[in-house]
């Protein structure tokens, strides 16, 4: 359980890099996956999950109002579930669905933040030095939101799934493995077509 909490905390921290702080690509699948894998004691599974996540989400960019699913959240959920002895192919499915749901939660949070921003603006007008507090508060709230979401998914889905997995028929497990192994090929086909020369 300590490892699960640690992975949720690291995942929430890495997720901040996606939008709210730094944007130094720590939250990319190929960086976050191996990092979280190293913490969980299985860096290679972390690498595989990271590569698969990035290949799967490569065709959705944060352009305009589009909010891509978070690779950091997907990797964190997947590896946290792997730490509960759930196989990577099953954990990854939960991770992808979790990242999709997280994108919707994030959209709702961004809409709801308008009221919070208006309050902060008033405080900044009264005291410009309040800006630093507003930034720290925004980062803390985002971090807390990320952590609660990742932990909630891991507890709500991970714990029951860990108990159910040994009872899952072998045929169903084979289907899971088969679709998991299809991920890199789905992603690579998309990746190659992104380099079409359109300019100059």
């Amino acid at each position: 359980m300590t490892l699960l909490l640690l992975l949720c905390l690291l995942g929430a921290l890495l997720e901040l890099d996606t939008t709210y702080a730094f944007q130094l690509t720590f939250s990319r699948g190929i960086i976050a996956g191996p990092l979280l894998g190293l913490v969980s004691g299985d860096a290679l599974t972390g690498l595989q999950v990271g590569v698969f996540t990035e290949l799967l989400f490569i065709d959705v960019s944060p352009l305009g109002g589009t909010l891509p699913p978070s690779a950091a959240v997907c990797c964190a959920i997947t590896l946290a579930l792997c730490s509960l002895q759930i196989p990577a192919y099953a954990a990854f499915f939960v991770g992808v669905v979790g990242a999709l749901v997280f994108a919707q939660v994030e959209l709702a949070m961004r809409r709801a933040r308008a009221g919070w921003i208006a309050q902060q603006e008033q405080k900044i007008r009264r005291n410009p030095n309040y800006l630093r507090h507003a930034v720290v508060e925004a980062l803390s709230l985002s971090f807390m939101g990320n952590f609660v979401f990742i932990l909630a998914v891991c507890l709500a889905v991970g714990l029951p799934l860990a108990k159910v997995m040994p009872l899952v028929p072998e045929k169903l497990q084979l289907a899971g493995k088969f679709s998991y192994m299809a991920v890199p090929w789905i992603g690579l086909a998309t990746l190659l077509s992104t380099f079409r020369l359109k300019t100059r």
Partner: protein
Amino acid sequence: MLTKAMQLNLFLRSFLIQTGWNFAKYQNLGLCFTLYPFVKKLYAQDQESIPSVLERYLENFNTQPVMASFCIGALAKQEERLAGAKTLALYQQRLSEWNSMKRSLSITTASIGDRLFWGTLKPFTLLLALCIWLVQDINFFEVTLQENVTFWQVFGGALVAFFVFNAVALFVKWQGLSLSYFAENNGCFGLTKFDWNKTIFNAKKMGIIAAVVLLLWGVYYFVNDLQASLGLGFITRAVMVLFFVSISLMTRNLRIPNMYVYLIAAVMFAVACLF
């Protein structure tokens, strides 16, 4: 006004430009936070005007986070001109210029940044990392992964991707601040110092080379496997690869994201295997 110390301060603060991102005013809090030390120094003799100046920075602002440095430098320069206006008419004229520049520059930089960083550099560094991992014999195409791999085998590709992406991003971010601040009036705020189209074109060309290397490795891997055994496993894998590559290309034309293809495939396989 833009000393090296101030440039460093703005550069570091610009990493938080997206903090508090919201649908009402986008990056307004981050922009205000980034430019606050500059405004504070500029209006050191007239501190009462600082809240009204910050009010302008708290209005709508949205651009690509790396390219935002061009906006920050240009806004700092325009703010200096605004602070130096001697008459009300001149102040109003410069305020109008400040507003239109803020709007148009944020759109232009967002367009360049999205194409360069999200559309080209990110997939390119991913391909680079994949090539490095495959050359290092890290085969992530199998469910059962090999054991006894070194730290550098696992992190080699990731580190190269991280450093290549950030070398470009941090260079553009740092240069953007000074280029836009010191740009001539007709210099498009320093944006013309780089040939963005050529950079994107060359990066895409390098991406094609990396893609060919990856494909050649794939062919080598399959030919090796073919020599080992032309069994059911090989045929199943070849059919699976061809099937999913075709499906992916088809759904791309239909603008269906990859993640939905994977989720649908997982559910369909599960149903097919059960019944």
